């Protein structure tokens, strides 16, 4: 069964460093998302991406964050200068459809630890 994959599973970085989290969405999906879950809190939406553009973003997704689809398979989330509060699980998701009721399929997550 097709699935969303994410690398690395765990990333440890120093405050102020840049990190790139990688995702390979399900191959025939056209819509991509990043969510995060701070320990003990709910899963929160960061951004959605379609047709090489951000289609929606939350207030969490500030100028320190960017997303890119550098090739036909990868979808990345970059955090330019990490802060302690960026420590969280980051989940990538993809969907075949959007713009109405649809199901998003999630990857296993990358645990980001900022020291």
């Amino acid at each position: 069964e097709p699935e969303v994959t994410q690398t690395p599973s765990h990333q440890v970085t120093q405050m102020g460093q840049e990190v790139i989290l990688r995702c390979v969405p399900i191959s025939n999906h056209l819509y991509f998302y990043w969510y995060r879950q701070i320990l003990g809190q709910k899963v929160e939406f960061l951004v959605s991406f379609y047709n090489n553009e951000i289609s929606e973003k939350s207030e969490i997704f500030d100028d320190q964050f960017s997303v890119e689809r550098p090739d036909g398979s990868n979808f990345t989330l970059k955090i330019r200068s990490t802060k302690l509060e960026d420590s969280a699980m980051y989940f990538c998701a993809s969907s075949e459809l959007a713009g109405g009721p649809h199901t998003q399929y999630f990857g296993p997550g990358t645990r980001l630890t900022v020291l």
Partner: protein
Amino acid sequence: DQQVKQNSPSLSVQEGRISILNCDYTNSMFDYFLWYKKYPAEGPTFLISISSIKDKNEDGRFTVFLNKSAKHLSLHIVPSQPGDSAVYFCAAQASNTGNQFYFGTGTSLTVIP
């Protein structure tokens, strides 16, 4: 900003009995609801969904009920099995306004053999 709430952080149920997980929401624009299951060190796995035009959707042992007037949905698992032990997240979408999913904080279900 708690648009989706799961007020029970944990639930224990005997194997073979019914598990009922509850979810409340505040945004009347939500028209699509999903339940996800999450095991430790894995991402949320889609379980079942329901559109606001329905009040019930069933898939095998899993049934989701939606009460729009009460802004409440529930997931019933019958019969519960030890493999159902996981964290269950309720999610909601206002499909006419965007693709963002709003998640609850999750309920940890333990099914006791």
